[in-house]
């Protein structure tokens, strides 16, 4: 069976598209558009671009907040220090590991939950949706603390409940090692953000035309064939948005690590590293350089996804 998707929308010029010469009315409309959107655009520049530019600027200096007199321009040397330090690569590796594990598990679980929500009775749907969304509504620090206390050797109940499982006993110190600490961190992340991914996937699922499903059914396709050949290809844009958002979110993970391990046992992430250089060490130059590298990583991920999924978001919007 060949893949069944909606035919690509032909990009045609809108009927009202201006000819080569812009009419006075169009020019006035454009001007009005700029006047209306201009203030918002300026505010956007102020709150997003300005801090980024400032971070890039500071990253070129050796600048300690408690020693402003000795601020000196050092060019790209901060980047050299960071990129040749094993700590950066270790933090980068931990961040990628957490990102890959949580996003992969969340995608599978999110799909399952989206299917449940889609197939649930119409009367049950709002309640189910609200129930599934509850973890996402919890503040990250609060959920991190809850998971920390649950797995803590003194206050936790997990060891007592699951002592029958091999490898777990009442004395299991979850935060005493890298692998076990990261397991709890990943579990907490998955618990908290799966609802987000499932809601985005549910929206995508709702956009798959029922006629295609019925046609596939008539052709004798099994559930898995319909899933792989009809459902998933038709909700590619939704999957990309869900995975992209979650990947970016997971890559910036900070709260859970801060609360649960404070970076002990090699559980530091890139955000945590930036926090430590900037806030704890007050080394503004070095910290800014770490932040800039984190920002670049996020930009690369975003571009990678958009290119990798070969999705034109403008087309997905029907433009």
């Amino acid at each position: 069976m060949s893949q069944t998707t909606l035919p690509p929308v032909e990009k045609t010029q809108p009927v009202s598209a201006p000819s080569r010469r812009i009419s006075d009315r169009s020019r006035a409309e454009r001007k009005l558009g700029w006047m209306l959107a201009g203030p918002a655009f300026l505010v956007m520049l102020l709150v997003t671009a300005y801090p980024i530019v400032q971070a890039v600027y500071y990253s070129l200096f050796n600048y300690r907040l408690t020693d402003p007199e000795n601020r000196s321009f050092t060019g790209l040397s901060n980047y050299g220090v960071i990129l040749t330090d094993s700590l950066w690569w270790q933090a980068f590796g931990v961040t990628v590991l957490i990102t890959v594990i949580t996003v992969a598990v969340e995608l599978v679980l999110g799909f399952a939950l989206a299917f449940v929500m889609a197939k649930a009775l119409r009367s049950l749907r709002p309640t189910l949706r609200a129930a599934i969304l509850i973890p996402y509504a919890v503040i990250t620090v609060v959920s991190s603390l809850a998971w920390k206390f649950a797995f803590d050797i003194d206050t936790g109940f997990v060891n007592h409940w699951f002592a029958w499982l091999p490898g777990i006993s009442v004395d299991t110190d979850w935060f005493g090692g890298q692998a076990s600490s990261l397991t709890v961190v990943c579990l907490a992340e998955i618990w908290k953000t799966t609802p987000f991914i499932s809601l985005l996937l549910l929206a995508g699922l709702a956009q798959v035309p029922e006629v295609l499903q019925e046609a596939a059914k008539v052709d004798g396709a099994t559930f898995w064939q319909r899933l792989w050949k009809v459902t998933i290809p038709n909700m590619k844009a939704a999957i990309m948005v869900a995975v992209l958002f979650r990947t970016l979110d997971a890559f910036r993970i900070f709260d859970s690590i801060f609360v649960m391990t404070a970076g002990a046992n090699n559980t530091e992430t890139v955000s945590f590293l930036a926090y430590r250089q900037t806030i704890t060490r007050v080394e503004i130059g070095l910290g800014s350089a770490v932040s800039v590298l984190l920002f670049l990583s996020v930009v690369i991920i975003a571009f990678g996804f958009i290119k990798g999924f070969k999705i034109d978001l403008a087309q997905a919007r029907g433009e």
Partner: protein
Amino acid sequence: MTVSHAPSPGNRPGRTSTGSAPGRSGRRRARVGALASLVLASTLAACGGGSGGPPTLTWYINPDSGGQQEIANRCTAAANGQYTIEISQLPRDSPSQREQLVRRLAAEDSSIDLMSLDPPYIPEFAQAGFLAPVPPDVASRVSDGVVESAIQGSTWDGKLVAIPFWANTQLLWYRKSVAEAAGLDMSQPVTWDQLIKAAKSQHKLIGAQGIRSESLTVWLNALIESAGGHIIEKVTPKPEDYQFGLTSEAGVRAAEVMRDVANSGEVGAAFSTSNEDTSATGFESADGGFQVNWPFVWPRALSAVDAGTLDKSVPDDYGWALYPRVDADTPSKPPYGGINLGIGAFSEHTDFAFEAAECITSDENQAYYFETNGNPASSKAVYDDPAVLKVFPQAPVIRESLDAAAPRPQTPYYSEVSGGIQREYHPPADVDPKSTPQQATDLIAAVLRGDQLL
């Protein structure tokens, strides 16, 4: 501040439905407008209230059981209307307190008149010019009759830069029954090796702080100092020229003790995440044997008895002694902590702030703070106060411990030094006396040179 050109709503032509004389709705609007003007004027007047009247001093405090608030009230009353002291609470742990103060002071925040500072961060604040210089007459008054460790902790570059307030130290807490059964004579100084042996023989816990946090540096510093060395042997104007003592004989011996305690099998399953509270909880349990900890463990146990969560026989079994020795022949150097008062360099009322600091650190207030909040005084005289001795029978040992205590490395780069130690000496069970001290030295030196991240 005055309000000029305030619109007078009553004079404006009323825009009623009839378009002529002000009707009911116009009058209502006029009334609302007048009220709004009044509120605005009074609010603006309140804003400008600072120019007259006595100044308000803001004291940034570390969280406690309400003692600093009460002292602020007392000193406000004692000021006879010259100034009032308001408190503003900082985060719970001392590195976070430092972070917030540094950020504010770097921005030259004039609202910081007084601040409760953890001693290891005082050199950094002084070096950065965040602390107002202590006038010589104030310096001599506030260091008179004060324990040596508290004066050391308030000194940078040979000058007193903060006012000693309360001084903390760790004691060796032991269960009398356990020590007796193990045959330890607690009237004599004991070593860490003896403690490990005693705990093993009785299968009881040894409590210390193995968590990757400031507590770990406190422990390592006490071990090195007790072995006769220092984490930093020589502090120089340039941090890249510092000479470290981690690889010295004392440093290696300290690493051995840390490793031996962590691997003794008597430290509890979660030793690598164990902080002061965890140690105190373990010590209160039926497995409790020995612990090194701050004096808060005593009021904590008594409160638990009052709350009915701990049997009275438990604190009755508590014994206390000077911090354990690393080597039998060398006296121990217990950890020194507590809080000293810094006066903000950007404060607009430094004279009043110094006056307030002297009031806050008076013997009377220190005795009150010790008695009610369990925070030991830096003034020696307080230790003879009968009321204090009644609540803290271990006060004489605390004073003795404070006299022997050694501060943590005094350097403006303390965060880097402490952070490097925490990275290399954690988890304590993996400490290798042959390699860990060298690795930590290399790391800290590279971080101070700006060649490595932390």
